[in-house]
């Protein structure tokens, strides 16, 4: 994370945002909307909106929260207009081809990853979103609260219950896998 600079311009801010958060934002919005094209458009709009922001205010850790908040709000707005429901049972990532499908990847790791992801998709959407923001995109409780509009304690509760439920769901599956 780069440190604030007094001479940072909006263009610098956009360049930094694209370099550090483009993929994160696209993946997050894609998981939210299940629409790759919409996700890309939302992220593009978000970066273009960044040009109109005060660089002094967002130069620092606030940039990440701002990008996630603005893109999330825009995505939810578009989804509301389209009356489109998100299917959490069928993750949008299932339709993508892994750009680096390692043939050398250990089969056990792949099985474990697939099991975790499959179990993760059985979580309620609000729990899954905060868990994704925390463990996939590395946002803090406070940043997740800023992005989602929840309180930090509410975010902590959702993460606590989500992890607990994940452990509960994974335990029998892992036991069955180990028996095989």
């Amino acid at each position, binding site marked *: 994370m780069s440190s604030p600079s007094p001479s940072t311009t909006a263009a610098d801010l956009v*360049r930094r945002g694209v370099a550090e958060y483009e993929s994160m934002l696209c993946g997050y919005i894609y998981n939210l909307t299940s629409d790759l094209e919409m996700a890309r458009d939302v992220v593009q709009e978000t970066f273009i909106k960044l040009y109109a922001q005060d660089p002094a205010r967002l130069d620092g850790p606030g940039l990440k929260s701002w990008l996630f908040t603005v893109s999330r709000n825009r995505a939810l707005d578009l989804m509301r207009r389209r009356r489109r429901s998100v299917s959490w049972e069928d993750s949008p990532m299932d339709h993508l081809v892994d750009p680096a499908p390692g043939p050398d990847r250990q089969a056990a790791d792949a099985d*474990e990853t697939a099991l975790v992801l499959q179990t993760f998709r059985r979580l309620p959407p609000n729990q899954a979103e905060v868990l994704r923001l925390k463990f996939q995109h590395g946002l803090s409780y406070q940043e997740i609260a800023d992005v989602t509009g929840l309180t930090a304690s509410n975010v902590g509760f959702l993460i606590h219950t989500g992890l607990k439920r994940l452990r509960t769901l994974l335990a029998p599956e892992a036991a069955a896998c180990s028996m095989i």
Partner: protein
Amino acid sequence: MTATPDDSSFTAAVLGEVSACDGAAFRAGLAENPAWPQEAAAISRTAGLLGAALRQEPLVCLTIPQRQAVLHPERRTVPPAAGRRVWLAPTLVTAGIAAAVAVGLIVLPGGPGGTRGGGDSSPGLPSIAVQPGAPEKSGLRPVTPLPGMVNGLRLENPLPQAAPPLAPVPLKTPESMAASPPVVNGLSVPAVPKLNPAKADGPPGKSVRPGPGKLRPEESLGGSAPPK
């Protein structure tokens, strides 16, 4: 820290989401409570598994034109397609409906309203005048050019030039007519005919015979006074 492993603050402490003071209390609790390290390890393991699994999801990025549009907005050529799609479909549908209605009103015989060129069409619908003699069943109708229009162009001065105004005619007064009497067939005709003195006494052979008790002509026309 008084939280138990069932509290969300315990998970927050494991994930490092507590203040320095609470973090110190949590570490002290790990040393004091034998069940806490096992519970903390389970939370850490689940979080690690989940993070590793989520990070293996395929990367999604902007397209190259989108990224160029973001980084160089001054030469942005790819507008956001999502916004375009949002308004494009309703606009196209509306335009299509409007075009269909317009074509139906203009081309199709017996369009909405049921009358053409009549004065009793539905309010709000445009009335369309039908050219007399136009073929009823063909969609094309002859167009009578408007006056002053040639090939759709309006002439600058469509009407022929009017004749120059005549000189004003002086009024004829009796005095002016007497001074310059009109000429008819080469003869000057007096404007005011003179009385014929011969006819002043009346036409010949038509003398008035005074009847009994009536005045004689010389008495009635003469200057002598009637007898008293």
